[in-house]
């Protein structure tokens, strides 16, 4: 306990010292040009946008140097920004990590109940039915931390997340090999346990198609998306036929019969008519002889 407290105070002192250092550096900046040049590289910025005083200092430096003023100014500013970013990251990261780690740690205090359990477990000899000594059950780490769970608390950011690119690369499979298929089949065979009761048996049968689905749907398996007029008015399919003669008469009868047929789909009816079309076209020579 004493160790913790001292460490915490140390950190606090460190931080205050750094803040003081910052303030002093900022104040001394615009006074001398050369010292500023040294200190701009050492300075640690508090906020994200560059301190206006530092910017002033940079412009002063640029003006003093004999080379291209604007270029030097821009370069200096860029360097400042980069430095600022890195120092920010380091500072925040380091402090945060240690802080978080320490904050999560707390002194372990045994409750009297637990103490009693421990003592009793040591003393007693738990004997099984087969007269074998049982070890006291090792609770899982989750259940043992009765005060806190795994997901509660601030993130420590000790581990970095796996990049998403590698995940995607792993997921892409070129093509399922025979071994993969066999493995999948094996898994399916192993996981397909025999039904424990009549309900599961019926479920299995329904999936296989042996049993119908209840309540019974009269149109199960029938996927007729066509309207009634497509079934009945089939004259438009008779365009290629001669308009007079016995063939036309015959085809009109065919269409009359098809329109009254509820069992065929529209596609099947069209196929029917097309078959007749082909047949009569093949027999055209014969028909012309007659």
């Amino acid at each position, binding site marked *: 306990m004493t160790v913790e407290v001292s460490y915490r105070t140390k950190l606090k002192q460190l931080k205050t010292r750094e803040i003081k250092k910052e303030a002093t550096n900022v104040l001394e900046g615009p006074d001398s040009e050369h010292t500023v040049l040294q200190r701009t590289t050492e300075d640690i910025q508090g906020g994200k946008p560059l301190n206006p005083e530092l910017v002033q200092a940079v412009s002063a430096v640029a003006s003093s140097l004999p080379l291209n003023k604007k270029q030097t100014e821009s370069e200096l500013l860029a360097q400042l920004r980069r430095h600022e970013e890195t120092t920010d990251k380091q500072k925040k990261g380091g402090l945060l990590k240690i802080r978080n780690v320490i904050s999560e740690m707390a002194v372990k205090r045994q409750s009297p109940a637990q103490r009693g359990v421990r003592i009793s477990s040591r003393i007693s000899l738990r004997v099984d039915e087969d007269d074998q000594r049982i070890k006291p059950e090792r609770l899982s780490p989750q259940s043992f931390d009765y005060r806190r769970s795994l997901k509660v608390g601030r993130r420590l950011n000790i581990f970095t997340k796996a990049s998403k690119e590698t995940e995607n690369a792993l997921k892409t499979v070129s093509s399922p090999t025979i071994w993969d298929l066999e493995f999948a*089949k094996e898994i*399916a*065979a192993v996981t*397909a346990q*025999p039904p424990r009761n009549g309900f599961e048996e019926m479920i299995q049968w329904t999936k296989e198609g042996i049993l119908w689905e209840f309540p019974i749907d009269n149109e199960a398996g029938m996927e007729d998306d066509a309207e009634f007029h497509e079934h009945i008015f089939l004259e438009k399919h008779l365009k290629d036929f001669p308009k007079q003669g*016995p*063939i036309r*008469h*015959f085809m009109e*009868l*065919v269409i009359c019969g098809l329109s009254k047929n509820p069992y065929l789909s529209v596609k099947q009816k069209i196929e*029917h008519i097309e*078959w*007749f079309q082909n*047949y009569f076209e093949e*027999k055209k020579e*014969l*028909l012309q*002889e*007659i």
Partner: protein
Amino acid sequence: MEGAVCCWSRRLPGRPVLPSPCTRQVRSYYVDWRMLRDVKRRKLAYEYADERLRINAIRKNTILPKELQEVADKEIADLPRDSCPVRIRNRCVLTSRPRGVKRRWRLSRIVFRHFADHAQMSGVQRAMW
């Protein structure tokens, strides 16, 4: 039944069984060769059903010229013989018996009686009135 005796000498009529995850007992052979032939006839009849219907529609006509109908006659005769539905015989599913088969259960009278007496036919009871 006599046919079954001479069948033992030859191999049983098999059927290619596709690998399926079915765990129940599956009958993988037909009872005898006659049943197999019947199965082939049914398959062919299903394949040629549409064509036969259409050619017959041309034949059984009073409107179309007779020459056309004669040509249609020849065409239908050219189709494979097993494609006509008349050659299908409703045999018993379990014993392949050609006679005494009840259509509703597709079983011969002997097998039907056997199962009914063992109470394995749902809703079938001995008649008594």
